[in-house]
């Protein structure tokens, strides 16, 4: 009943800008389409009250992915996926189409900021132990999303078909040739032949604009459905004192919980955050400000720095030193550290494979009780070590590539 009242109040609020025929039309459409119900479902739910700024990273990721999809769509107005014309079409943009150059800049800087924001989002989730039951699949779909975005990053960097793109594509496709048994065949399939050729670009173009986004979008949907199903976990600040509360207090809190809480199955006390807030407008306000700030940053970087375009691809190059995109520097360093024969597959498949598997298994490896990071050293210390290792590898790669 209370919900019914709330919904009709929402309907009144939504129709407020309209009067007369407009309001009647809205009501007619709403009765058939259920817009008010939909808006109600999307906006009205309980979220943890404390630490809400840190929880805006997920929505920022979503907004930047939308930015990537939209800017990518409009890059296709000019870009030609052909080895003879790709570079020419982008060179035209850079010199004769200032707005398209900004769109291209936003697509590149959007990708850069996306990697940073996804990293922070993962780190936030890791530190607060939000992946604990029942949210294990939230974490796993998140890791899959991260891998898809990595794939989008690497395929996207091949498309300009300038020197950087060409040699990146060469190295990346050759890495797969070290795969046991079928390596050379997979390389040929990806390249459309034993060497880089015209169909190498069309393949990676298709993977970048269709295959990976077609996997990414439903995976985002699953990630959000899972978020809504279990509610937002928040972090330890939302569960202060829950382990000391009495059985009666706990069951009262469970009974009074607003949807989508209580999250079940949970560790005792962790089914409902202590203090709840409304998703709309409290959380949405913070989400909107953070996303705006990030998109502003992306816009400014696109206008001021833009996207570089090196000289057109030259397969006969003699002195070109390709530098991988910064988010692949740790992997590039592994190529140096695992030289020759059987070591190479270890460096390109086994080490990153073990790392990815461990990352995906985090919810099952972490058997610690509680949520405070200082009470979970078994997880926090290896996590910190992994982050430091990646930074260390990236620094080594930078030192090697730029002769520092």
């Amino acid at each position, binding site marked *: 009943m209370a919900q019914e009242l709330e919904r009709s109040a929402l309907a009144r609020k939504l129709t407020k800008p309209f009067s007369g025929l407009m309001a009647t039309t809205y009501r007619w459409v709403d009765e058939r389409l259920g817009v008010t119900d939909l808006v109600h479902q999307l906006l009205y739910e309980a979220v943890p009250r404390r630490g809400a700024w840190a929880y805006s990273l997920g929505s920022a990721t979503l907004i930047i992915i939308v930015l990537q999809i939209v800017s990518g769509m409009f890059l296709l107005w000019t870009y030609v996926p052909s*080895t003879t014309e790709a570079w020419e079409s982008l060179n035209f943009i850079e010199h004769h189409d200032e707005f398209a150059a900004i769109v291209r800049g936003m697509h590149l800087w959007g990708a850069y900021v996306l990697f940073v924001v996804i990293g922070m989002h993962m780190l936030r989730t890791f530190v607060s132990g939000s992946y604990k039951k029942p949210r294990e699949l939230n974490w796993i779909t998140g890791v899959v999303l991260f891998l898809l975005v990595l794939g989008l990053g690497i395929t996207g960097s091949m498309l300009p078909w300038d020197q950087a793109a060409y*040699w990146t594509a060469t190295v990346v496709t050759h*890495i797969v040739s070290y795969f046991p048994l079928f390596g050379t065949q997979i390389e040929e399939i990806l390249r459309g032949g034993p060497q880089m*050729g*015209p*169909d190498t670009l069309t393949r990676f173009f298709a993977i970048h604009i269709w295959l990976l986004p077609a996997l990414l979008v439903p995976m985002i949907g699953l990630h959000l459905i899972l978020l809504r199903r279990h509610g937002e976990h928040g972090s330890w600040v939302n569960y202060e004192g829950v382990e000391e509360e009495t059985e009666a207090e706990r069951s009262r809190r469970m009974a009074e919980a607003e949807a989508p809480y209580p999250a079940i199955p949970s560790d005792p006390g962790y089914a409902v955050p202590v203090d709840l807030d409304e998703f709309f407008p409290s959380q949405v306000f913070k989400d909107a400000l953070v996303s705006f700030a990030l998109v502003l940053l992306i816009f400014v970087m696109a206008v001021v720095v833009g996207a570089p375009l090196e000289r057109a691809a030259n397969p*006969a190059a003699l002195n070109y030193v390709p530098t991988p995109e910064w988010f692949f520097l740790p992997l590039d360093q592994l190529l140096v550290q695992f*030289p*020759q024969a059987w070591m190479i597959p270890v460096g390109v498949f086994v080490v990153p494979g073990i790392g990815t598997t461990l990352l995906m298994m985090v919810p099952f490896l972490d058997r610690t009780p509680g949520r405070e990071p200082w009470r979970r050293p078994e997880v926090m210390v290896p996590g910190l070590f992994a982050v430091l290792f990646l930074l260390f590898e990236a620094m080594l790669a930078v030192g*090697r590539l730029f002769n520092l």
Partner: protein
Amino acid sequence: MTISQRRMSRRKFMIMGINAAGAGTGLLIAAPIVGSILSPLFYQRKQPWVLVADIQHVPVGVPTAYVVMLDQGGDAWQVPPVPRTVYVVKLNLDNQVQVITLSNVCTHMQCDVHWDINLNVFFCPCHGGEYSMDGTNIAGPPPKPLFRYEHKFVGTTLYVRNILTEGK
């Protein structure tokens, strides 16, 4: 047989039909797609001979880079031939001149190597691979010697074609 059992078998039949039709539909769509994905493995490439240089103009003991418009035998719909670098190495072994035509593609990750005059090695800038004058991998991550293009002479004129053989 009771009615409910007969209903059950009718239901089972339809579920089997759904599975069979679903598998058939999937197979019909997937077969040509898988075929097209695998097609580069079976595509026949013609590799014509391409002129490099008159061998008399190539110095002995100094790897010399030539940019050759190696037609990739019409790799897919490649229209302009792709320029590639061929290192022609003229070695004097026991008063016998031997010519090898090296690819400048690093055998580690296929970056572009160049002959470093100061170090006297082929050097790869990506991950620091090094090769001796005859293409033997001597330092860094490369697992194999540099590949060699097939070559032939017509008189003193050197020709290569885009067929690679393992170096020694």
